[in-house]
């Protein structure tokens, strides 16, 4: 049963995931964390971090990892969890495969028509909102703690957020290197 809903969920994510990997994040987060509770916010954030550091598209990475972890968290063994990751990845890729084949077969001449362009023009600002929502949803106490609960961790977390935004956005430091710096800071300051 969980396999079926895993398949359905990632199929929907593949079908409605506009705006590339990042645009997809709020969909993946909404479905796996909020709706199905397969992952906690902290686990989801870890997946994003690991996806950033390993090769390949972030959508594929998250699907594989979510599929594995969701089945594993549900109390199944490793073998079933591997099957879960295959299910999620296949389901994510399937809509792309079908849609791209359909487009190259018959719709390529419609891609530049007025209605299709209007639809994409409407989607573009919404995808920016989706990405903003993914950012906001990750700003919670699982990732930052709270000023009441653990003021030290909260302060360090906010500083790391600001430092990473400045480093990657302004100084153009490679994101992977920035993740390594943040991990090192965590080891030193939050152990």
């Amino acid at each position, binding site marked *: 049963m969980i396999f079926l809903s895993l398949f359905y969920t990632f199929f929907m994510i*593949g079908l*409605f995931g*506009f*705006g*590339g*990997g*990042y645009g*997809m994040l*709020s969909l993946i987060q*909404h479905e796996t964390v909020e709706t199905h509770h397969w992952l906690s916010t902290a686990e989801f*954030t*870890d997946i*994003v*971090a*690991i*996806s*950033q550091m*390993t090769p*390949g*598209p*972030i*959508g*594929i990475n998250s699907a594989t990892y979510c599929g*594995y*972890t969701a089945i594993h968290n549900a109390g199944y063994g490793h073998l079933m969890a591997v099957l879960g*990751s295959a299910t999620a*990845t296949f389901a994510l*890729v399937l809509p*792309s495969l079908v*849609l*791209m084949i359909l487009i*190259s077969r018959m719709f*390529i001449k419609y891609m530049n028509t007025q209605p299709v362009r209007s*639809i994409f*023009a*409407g989607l*573009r*600002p*919404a*995808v*920016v909102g*989706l990405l*903003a*929502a993914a*950012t*906001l*949803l*990750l700003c919670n106490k699982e*990732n930052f703690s709270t000023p009441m609960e653990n003021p030290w961790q909260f302060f360090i977390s906010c500083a*790391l*957020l600001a*430092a990473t935004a400045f480093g*990657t956005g302004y100084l153009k430091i490679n994101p992977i290197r920035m993740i390594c*710096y*943040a*991990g*090192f800071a*965590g*080891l030193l300051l939050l*152990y």
Partner: protein
Amino acid sequence: MNIYWDSFKTFFKIGIFTLGGGYAMIPLIEEEVVNKKQWVSKDEMLDLIAIAQSCPGVFAINIATFIGYKLKKTRGAIATTVGTALPSSLIILAIAIFFSQFKDNPYVAAIFRGIRPAVVALIAVPTFRMAQRAKIGWTNCWIPVVCALAIWLLGVSPIYIILIAALAGYLYGMFIKPTES
């Protein structure tokens, strides 16, 4: 050499060597597919990128499917798609198996407590970059703001946001400003 095997291998290689997601793949795909193998021309590649970007799904998979289909129809598309997805999938699977045993280790936990806030920033930065690319200004900045608040505060599914935005774009282009692209 068998064309299925060749295209699978090419996209497998592209899948292995791209850190940082789909857009980092474009130069590598161009080098392999346009310059070396000459499966598509440079102009076709530009069209492919435009279509793959506007369609849903993983960008790199969209490109791979497109080129595979152009080469050898549906079976070619399956070869290139599996080739692109397989390396990252296998690597992340190995990490998932490995990480599930180590995440309760206090050192690993501390490292990830540091990484998590950094990840939030890593998603925040492309938000602004994408806003520039989508030409968000004073007149239309309410759209992303409303979308983000609906998801964040009201828990609306992003799927509904996508559907509404597509419909609104269609109606706007149809009835309000038919000349705008």
